[in-house]
């Protein structure tokens, strides 16, 4: 530990270690963002529909 350069170098395996963490973050983070957006969309669509139906009556 201590200096940031040594930390980033990962003992010479920087490419492998950081790629592994980047892939995990991209896949799991991406799925989380996608699931969250789709959840918000589903709420908005349902509310819009309920308002439309309320107006028709």
């Amino acid at each position: 530990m201590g200096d940031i350069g040594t930390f980033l170098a990962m003992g010479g395996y920087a490419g492998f270690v950081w790629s592994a963490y980047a892939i995990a973050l991209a896949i799991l983070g991406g799925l989380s963002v996608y699931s969250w957006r789709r959840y918000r969309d589903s709420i908005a669509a349902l509310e819009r529909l309920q308002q439309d139906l309320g107006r028709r009556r």
Partner: protein
Amino acid sequence: MINWLANPARFMRLSARAVPWCGWTAAVVLAIGLFWALVVAPPDYQQGDTVRIMYVHVPAAWMALSVYLFVAVASAVALVWRHPLAEVAGRAAAPVGAAFTFVCLATGSLWGRPMWGAWWVWDARLTSVLILFFLYLGYIALVNAFDDPSRGGRAGAVLALVGVVNLPIIKFSVDWWNTLHQPASVMRVGGPRIAVSMLAPLLIMAFGFALLFAVLLMLRMRTALNERKAMALRLNSGIAAAPRPERAQTVSAHTAVP
């Protein structure tokens, strides 16, 4: 317990409170786990810093297996008792399981290259996990393949149950065959054989991944229930029967998308 939870209205009420709670806990646990794994944990005496890949690779592998088991149990419940939530749960969980499996395969490849000298070998462990990934993809494709969601659900459930055979094959592949992949060092008879300084961040990351799965599962189930409710409202209100073709099209597009 399952019976009690199988009420969609009750699930919506409980999960509304559980999602933010679980989500923030997952974020905190994963932050601690990442700091521990990348900074605090020592490099391995043989593998150097590549051992840090373990802290995402192994929890992802555990989740890949656990989520598949979850999908299979949900499928069994859906087939036998026709619980309305079981099928929703299986469909919601499968893409998350596929994501964990992909992370496991990709990080394993990045670990294998410096340590074994190969990105990929057709070894029993690696091949059976690749099959698990294809089982997930097959399940996802199958449940979405039918216009009638309940038929797709049944076909997918059967595939999920048949695929359970693969789980013990994955688990014991390292004992049954002479593979390049190392045998279990945490979940083994006689207790873990790994230093506490590495076991602690590993278990914290695993807990974080499990919490992440719980949040995503609830979010995706809530999404599916919202979408089903919207479709039911549309059908009941007679929008589906409206003569205007673009309305009719909207409904059929929604039937196709689960």
